[in-house]
């Protein structure tokens, strides 16, 4: 059986998110400062969209990955930075939803739901080692009733605003991969410090920064699967596979916004007395853009569908992320070509989207890493 149709609930969900975004996000997205950002986050909280995968019993919408990807695409089409805040929050919550115990779910998931919802962060990358698990240097020393965490995480999305940070650290410096654990650190924990928030080229609404941990005491109940040595690595790879599908949805949203803007321009910009959309050179470019976006969207949906079905989704999510991020970069650049000099001006939507799309081949594992993930399973 094969079915590409969306359910009535999914169609209503898209419609409500689109409606809210057109009034409360899109008009302010390009020039948004801190005040506008707070208002946008409140709009998301009002609709319970900061982490839509949180199960209903913990205050969330309980959406599956396909529906969550639809939300992320709509938000990315309105504001890629805002969508990045949501995608990072979804990533941070995923290990808790997958393997957290009741106490962890009760304590952390409600922080991401309802009108007072906040964002969360996922911290793996380090200043020196990137995301290489073999040279991870953040480590947690076992104490009598928990752990003591020391180290530094870099390029953390939602740094400084996260209600909690999901941190990956080694507990044995000579056997790093196998000793990985996933720790849940409250945003106000003693010893946790946001050292710097970077000025990024794109996704500007999302704060990206460096976070330091100095003797952060973590109680045993804040460690996912604390008694199961060896669980961290598998949970981490699984979480990444989910995160890649969400980044893929984010990429589709960015590409779609670029296509819609370029199409509107091409329908109204006259050359030789006719809209440039009527010129084959532009028409073919638009056709290629639309086709690539459809390909990326279908691959994203397939990966998310496999996740929802509990099937093996590792290759599908890596392929979706590889394709969608590449498509977003190609489509935004093609849109800039159609707009000509206008698309190169600061403050122009396409100029912003080109910069937003640039990060997609880097985050959630570079595209070279995606190729490694795919080829290792061929």
């Amino acid at each position: 059986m094969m079915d590409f149709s969306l359910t009535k609930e999914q169609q209503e969900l898209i419609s409500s998110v689109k409606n809210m975004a057109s009034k409360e996000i899109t008009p302010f997205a390009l020039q948004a400062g801190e005040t506008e950002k707070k208002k946008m986050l409140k709009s998301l909280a009002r609709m319970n969209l900061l982490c839509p995968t949180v199960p209903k019993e913990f205050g969330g919408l309980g959406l599956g990955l396909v529906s969550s990807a639809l939300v992320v695409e709509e938000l990315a089409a309105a504001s890629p930075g805002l969508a990045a805040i949501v995608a990072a929050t979804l990533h941070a919550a995923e290990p808790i939803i997958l393997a957290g115990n009741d106490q962890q779910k009760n304590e952390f998931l409600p922080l991401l739901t309802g009108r007072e919802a906040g964002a969360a962060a996922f911290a793996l990358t380090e200043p020196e080692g990137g995301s290489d698990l073999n040279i991870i240097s953040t480590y947690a020393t076992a104490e009598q009733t928990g752990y003591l965490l020391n180290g530094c995480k870099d390029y953390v999305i939602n740094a400084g605003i996260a209600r909690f940070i999901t941190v990956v650290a080694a507990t044995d410096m000579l056997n790093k991969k196998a000793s990985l654990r996933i720790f849940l650190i409250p945003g106000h924990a003693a010893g946790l410090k946001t050292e710097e928030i970077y000025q990024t080229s794109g996704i500007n609404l999302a704060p990206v920064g460096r976070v330091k941990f100095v003797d952060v005491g973590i109680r045993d109940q804040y460690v996912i699967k604390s008694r199961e040595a060896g669980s961290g690595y598998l949970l981490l790879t699984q979480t990444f596979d989910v995160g890649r599908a969400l980044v893929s949805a984010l990429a589709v949203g960015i590409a779609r916004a670029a296509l819609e803007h370029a199409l509107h321009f091409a329908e109204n910009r006259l050359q030789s007395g006719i809209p440039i959309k009527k010129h084959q050179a532009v028409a073919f470019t638009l056709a290629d853009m639309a086709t690539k976006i459809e390909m990326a969207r279908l691959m994203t949906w397939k990966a998310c569908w496999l996740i929802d079905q509990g099937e093996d989704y590792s290759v599908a999510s890596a392929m979706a992320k590889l394709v969608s991020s590449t498509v977003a970069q190609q489509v935004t650049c093609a849109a800039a070509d159609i707009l000509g000099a206008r698309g190169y001006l600061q403050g122009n939507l396409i100029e912003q989207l080109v910069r937003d799309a640039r990060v997609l081949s880097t985050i959630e594992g570079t595209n070279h890493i995606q190729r490694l993930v795919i080829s290792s399973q061929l």
Partner: protein
Amino acid sequence: MSFRDIGIKIQAAREEKGFSQEQLARLVGCSQSALSNYEKGKRRLYLSQLEKIAEILDKPLEYFVASLSSQHHSQPVADRNQRFVTIVNHLSRLTDEEINEVMEYIDYLEWRRSGGHK
């Protein structure tokens, strides 16, 4: 440690238990070809699947993910981590020249461990 390493250990534990791939696959609830791919490291295992396999094969989860090299370390983890902290503290007090000497000695140790082939 890689998914291939985990697969090798699944195969070893399965054979130790006397199960065929078909038998273990049936107990786990996956196809024989999926299990074969897990053992070859050609398909990623998720935590819940490995937990199930570990339970059926009577092994702790750690058995499957522990690096082979970790078998060479006899010190308790906490002691080793504490020694690393001590070493880093010593290093922070050295001059650049002394750090270079330490690096040369580390290179020598790695060369010696590799049997002089590096």
